[in-house]
């Protein structure tokens, strides 16, 4: 099957610590929604697809990327972000990801326009580039794409990963990506040719339930009960009770109410006596935490954002 007509599972990265190597390049890691863009400049057509292979074209009507490519057809890989003070802002992105109806999307796209931070090219004028070395793909990307108010090419540097990580962290970015220069594009694979080096510990967890709140929170919830997969089994990894504002809490609560269930989704669960409303384990959120205890529980977790682009099965304990 031709690449153009398919959905593409993006290549994924493994976790790593900062390092230096002249066989590698390093680029900023953008906090956004991964997106494969299928662009036909002649027909002025674009299709945007997220990592769950869902079509998200209608969600981002402002990303008319065919205006910024010098080619007939291209498939690009990148990250959709909404910027605030020049940095990706995931609260704003979340607002964009929640919108469902067209009227509202149009208005919000003007207030909080998205930008496509492009970093790879997989297809160019009928030619598949999956086996072309990364550094050559980067070179082609540079010639095909011009920066605009819709799309910005992600910069990269050579060799000095440690220094780059330090600077990126100081500038408030969540981390950097390391990519092996000679690597090909491995569709759908979590490869060791791409590495993510992050400034803080974060983990994607499945919301499995919530406890009732007190005081100001009594209308929503007190904390979220989190789970992750380990050896194919859903296990309780801790509860998170901080990190959201009232709007987010209200929104999450509304969503959770719709998926409430009587059944506890864990095979084993240590009952602490707290009353828990269980939900279908389908919503994914990212939490920041200090460390993972020896019992595989999150220490000092704080809610970061919902991950609409991830499914429960992707939440695997990586540590």
């Amino acid at each position: 099957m031709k690449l153009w007509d398919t959905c593409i599972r993006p290549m994924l990265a493994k976790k790593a610590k900062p390092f230096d190597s002249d066989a590698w390049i390093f680029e900023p890691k953008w906090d956004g929604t991964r997106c494969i863009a299928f662009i036909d400049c002649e027909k002025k057509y674009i299709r945007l697809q997220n990592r769950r292979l869902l079509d998200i074209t209608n969600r981002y009507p402002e990303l008319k990327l065919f205006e910024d490519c010098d080619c007939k057809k291209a498939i690009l890989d990148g990250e959709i972000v909404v910027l605030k003070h020049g940095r990706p802002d995931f609260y704003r992105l979340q607002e964009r990801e929640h919108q469902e109806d067209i009227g509202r999307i149009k208005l919000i796209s003007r207030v909080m326009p998205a930008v496509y931070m492009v970093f790879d090219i997989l297809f160019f004028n009928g030619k598949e580039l999956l086996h072309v070395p990364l550094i050559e793909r980067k070179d082609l990307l540079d010639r095909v794409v011009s920066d605009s108010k819709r799309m910005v090419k992600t910069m990269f540097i050579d060799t000095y990963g440690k220094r780059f990580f330090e600077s990126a962290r100081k500038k408030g970015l969540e981390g950097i990506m390391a990519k092996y220069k000679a690597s090909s594009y491995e569709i759908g694979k979590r490869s060791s040719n791409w590495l993510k080096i992050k400034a803080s510990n974060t983990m994607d967890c499945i919301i499995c339930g919530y406890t009732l709140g007190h005081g100001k929170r009594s209308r929503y919830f007190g904390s979220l009960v989190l789970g992750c997969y380990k050896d194919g089994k859903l296990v309780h990894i801790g509860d998170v009770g901080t990190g959201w504002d009232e709007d987010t809490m209200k929104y999450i609560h509304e969503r959770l109410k719709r998926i409430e269930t009587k059944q506890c989704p864990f095979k084993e669960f240590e009952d602490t006596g707290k009353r828990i409303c269980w939900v279908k384990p389908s919503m994914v959120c990212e939490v920041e935490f200090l460390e993972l205890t020896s019992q595989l529980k999150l220490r000092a977790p704080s809610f970061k954002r919902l991950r609409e682009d991830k499914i429960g099965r992707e939440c695997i304990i990586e540590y």
Partner: protein
Amino acid sequence: MSHAIWEGYISIGLVNIPVKIYSAISSSALSFRLLCKKCHTPLKYERYCPKCKKHVRWDETVKGYELTKGEFVVLEDKDFEHVKLESKKKLEIEFFTHEYDIDPLYMNKSYYVLPERGGEKAYLLLKEILQITSKVAVGRVIIKNRERVAMLRPFKQGMLLTTLHYIEDILPIESFPGLNISERVSREELELAKELVRRYTKPFHLEKFRDRYKEALMEIIKKKARGEKIRPVELEIKETKDLMKALKASIQIKKK
């Protein structure tokens, strides 16, 4: 709950049922004040006579009916007094009919009708008999100085009064172009269309439809109210590029 807009009697034969009516609809449309662009002060509207070159007070105005362009028949308050209809608040039931004889197009505004003290039983009797016979009552009522045709029908535990347009206010569809269609539809097309309709038929729930425009606008209002300035995306991108430039530079300085 809003105020009653009308208080009076439903009069049916020799029976008078004391009732109050309330508007059944409250408009939820967003409304805006017009402000001065420069200082954001709400504008004040003044009536200005271009001939006398002065502002005119309300008591210095009369109403004019424009006969031909620029030529008016002037009416004063007492002229309106003469045509005032019997102002007794009474909804006189004239006859009963089938609701489906009244096209939805005719319907104007809807009001809830609720019984006043002493009228409860008669009210209930009227409601129930309308229900049992599947009929609506038709009568005339004066609301806000205009006489209206209205229909009264049972609604949930109470009754609903809907005023109707006058026939002269309804434009006939024949007065619009486009219906001289010479083609005919075939039996197959009809069958196909029928299948389509069958497949897409489902119960109607008004609560599933929302005013998207209003909600989106409200979103922006909320944002702006929180003091979040909307910055042009070009400016954001410039900062992102500056950030990337700075990152690149930080490596090069250290290399030396």
